[in-house]
């Protein structure tokens, strides 16, 4: 209980300081929007229906891209972990892309896929798929060899060892990959929309920044931040539920 109180107090305190700074320190409204102004802009956007439309568009881009990246990334990770030839061929590319700021290639994806949601979906996939591959592969490779031996001693086939030992053992890593993917995916949505879009929260941010409408800009960022926090927390919950043995 104590911890919840401190957390809430910290958030409220932070917001109060931000409000104070916005009114009395950085008085130029072009540089900083106060929490109150941002929330008021949020309310306006909601009443105009602008916010809902943007959330739907960005939401589609995020969830479709995230889903595809997770499924494909997990499958590829399972393949690279299980077959050395595949791993040798793919690993230099996977490591290379993971380490590079490929999000900078967003304009290129706009060129290829157009200004609709599919270019943004592509950006999200490009950001989420690599940690998924790497985490899944790590999960399989970190399977406790003693557990594998125990299964072998009962005469388990390679398929059975994969199904009954490697896969459940890698679950914590896969879920950690999901958790990491959330933040990256949201970045992908925003940057993709900044590169070229007809709607969405990143689109709103872009418009707002061009006319220096700070409250609207801040409001959009707040919505994205909230989505990130909620999704990350949801995956943490999932992690605790599905893999309780990893303290």
């Amino acid at each position: 209980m104590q911890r919840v109180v401190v957390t809430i107090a910290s958030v409220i305190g932070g917001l109060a300081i931000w409000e104070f700074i916005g009114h009395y320190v950085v008085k130029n409204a072009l540089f900083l929007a106060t929490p109150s102004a941002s929330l008021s802009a949020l309310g306006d956007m909601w009443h105009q229906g602008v916010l809902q439309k943007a959330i739907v568009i960005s939401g589609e881009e995020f969830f479709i891209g995230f889903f595809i990246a997770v499924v494909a990334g997990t499958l590829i990770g399972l393949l690279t972990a299980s077959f050395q030839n595949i791993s040798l061929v793919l690993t230099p590319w996977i490591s290379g892309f993971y380490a590079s700021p490929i999000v900078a290639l967003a304009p290129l994806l706009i060129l290829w896929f157009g200004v609709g949601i599919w270019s943004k979906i592509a950006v999200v996939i490009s950001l989420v798929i690599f940690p998924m591959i790497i985490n899944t592969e790590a999960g399989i490779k970190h399977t406790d060899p003693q557990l594998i031996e125990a299964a072998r001693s009962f005469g388990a086939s390679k398929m059975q060892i994969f199904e009954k030992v490697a896969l459940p053992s890698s679950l914590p890593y896969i879920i950690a990959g999901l958790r990491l993917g959330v933040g990256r995916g949201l970045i992908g949505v925003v940057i993709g929309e900044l590169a070229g879009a007809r709607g969405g929260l990143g689109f709103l941010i872009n418009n707002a920044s061009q006319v220096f409408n700070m409250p609207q800009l801040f409001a959009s960022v707040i919505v994205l931040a909230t989505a990130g926090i909620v999704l990350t927390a949801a995956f943490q919950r999932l992690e605790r539920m599905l893999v309780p043995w990893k303290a």
Partner: protein
Amino acid sequence: MEGVASAASPAKLSVRGLTKYYDDLEVLSDIAVDVADGEFVSIVGPTGCGKTTFLRIVDGLEPFDAGEVSIDGRQVTKPGPDRAFVFQADSLQPWRTVWSNAAIGLEIQGRLTGAERERLNRLLELVGLKGFERYYPRQLSGGMRQRVNLARALAVHPEVLLMDEPFAALDAQTREIMQTELLRIWSAAKSTVLFITHQIDEAIYLSDRVLVFSRRPGRLQEDIAIDLPRPRDPSVKRTPKFSEYVGHIWNLIESAVRESVMEETVVHS
């Protein structure tokens, strides 16, 4: 009395001329032994003498270079449902409950029928885990996890039970208790047991015979029959006959143990 195979009672486990190399290093040299059905046989010897390798070969987990290993006359080359291995480290799956872990051998072998489930329930009771079926390994003490290990191995009704220092990771008192428990469970399950340990008194207390392996390359130095009455309880450890056996075995391996300790010292200096 030695566990000698005869036409009347053929050996359960028969090993002839077993030799194994790791690259150029000979780790087992011409091992020959017979184990009768239902016998409890311990293996002792200095570190590096190949005891664990021997056990793993019998289970089919490792290949060998010469000789033969057979159970009931059948040659052994891979793991099978006729044998089960109890590892030193508890290799329990943390995401499965006690019951589910104990059932995994049956599950892998496709034998998890309704009747087997019933038998497994009773087996868990036999090893002292009644009431803990839904617990997870992380909630159990070391001794209890080894009981699950044991239940898991016994669940597949192995003809030969292979145990590799199963109590080494337990504290001394838990170990004493587990020894007596093992005897109780073994006399109920009636399996043939090959048991590796570094503790000479543990070997003598549990076994019908003690095989003493020599230093690398591992050879069967001596096959000692333990002529102590059964059922045994811990007080037998304090009888003069028991001490004689301890002395005898210690004499056999003492010089080998000293040499290997010295060797390790020299290598590290």
